[in-house]
């Protein structure tokens, strides 16, 4: 009886070993020490506009995968003055190739034309677009994309 149960016990032991701790296949590649983030986070060189309002964003620190990232941005008009948009503003992360977003971004107004966005989670490596949107009664009236690759 014990001989017939031995394979079962061995199999259960093997399952227990494999299921405890880290996966045996995880990479041992060390993360790059290159500085990324702040103004250099995106390869996008153009200016960002929502209607006739320019957006100038900056991440507050090096952007990390799986971490809560934050950025500050200001909105200025053609004369360089800080302005608030006519409509409500919303930020959203989107992964265009995979067709999914991320955790809802929290937006806080600091002062006229100065905003802070937090809880920006990049949930996997790859190409992301940060969407700046103007919303009027639940509908998007203007949108600008700021690409980023992790």
């Amino acid at each position, binding site marked *: 009886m014990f001989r017939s149960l031995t394979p079962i016990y061995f199999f259960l032991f093997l399952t227990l070993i494999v299921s405890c701790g880290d996966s045996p*296949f995880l*990479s041992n590649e060390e993360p790059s020490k290159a500085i990324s983030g702040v103004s250099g986070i995106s390869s996008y060189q153009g200016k960002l506009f929502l209607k006739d309002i320019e957006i100038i964003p900056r991440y507050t620190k090096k952007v990390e995968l799986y971490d809560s990232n934050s950025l500050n941005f200001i909105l200025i008009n053609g004369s360089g003055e800080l302005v608030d948009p006519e409509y409500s503003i919303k930020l959203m992360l989107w992964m*265009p190739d995979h067709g*999914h977003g991320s955790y809802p971004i929290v937006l806080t107004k600091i002062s006229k034309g100065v905003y802070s966005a937090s809880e920006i*989670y990049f*949930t996997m490596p*790859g*190409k992301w677009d940060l969407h700046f949107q103007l919303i009027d009664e639940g509908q998007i009236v203007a949108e600008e994309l700021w690409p980023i690759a992790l």
Partner: protein
Amino acid sequence: MAYSSLKIFFLVAFSVNTYAASCCGGGGGSSSVVTSEDRAKVYLSYRNAAYVYDVDTLGNASKRTTDEEEVLESMNIGGAYIFDNYFQLAMSTSVNKVTKRTSSKEESTSDISDSKISIAYEFLQEKYYSRWKPRGFIYFSQLVPTGNSRYDAEKPLQTDITGGGFHKSQVGLTLFKVIDNFDVTVDLNSAYYHSESFNDVSVYRFPSTEFSISAGVSPGYSPVRVGLSYSYKYDGHSELEFTDGRINHSKGSRVSTIGLGVNYLAGDISYGVNYFDQTLLAGSRNSSLEKSLLLNISKAFPL
């Protein structure tokens, strides 16, 4: 020899699997057709998969670092019953645990994944000996989205994505042949995803197609089978329509998987250890690539 040949059938039931990227519910693709001379089968399997590469739409691969760890563990249970010798019904469900980890943060979630019910018919029956004529099965599977989809994810790192989110109808064809102590299995299937509406978005996902081939040998007609498998899966793109007027399109994905497995048959119980690797072959597109280990135990109930 006939006895060994029949038992070999039983060992190949789980030799082929294709798994999807974690962001999309990470599901398995095995048909679970029972090809042995048994009345019923129940099985339990455990899979541990680590996502180690990401491939973009152009095929450029980047290796994940120690700060980008993502592991999927899946416990699957199911069974199949054969009616009238040629019809069979199978059901399965699973529980997934997703873990994402950096050097300073970790998030982990366990929850039920999608469930599946399948019906198969042996249209190419082995009524006389033929060295070359295979046994053929056609099957229909219906996947029920009992798991949590990425459109319903609430956690910051989306580790609560345990299912695909779609009702999926799949039709397939399996050809199976044993020659002496060698066996070959070929499977081709296509899946249709029913349109679904989530909180603020309606999604239409284009069909997927999967092809796989597996070959194995039982050295010296022993109860041990060593097998090699290859599978290729193409997932169509998605169209998303949001309530705020936005329309988005995602890109399709392609993944090739190589598998190596060892199975041991002790009486009516089969034990298997399988290794799957999506990083060995080129040609994958727009997906996360994994390496995984699958342990499975099955018990057959004879006629």
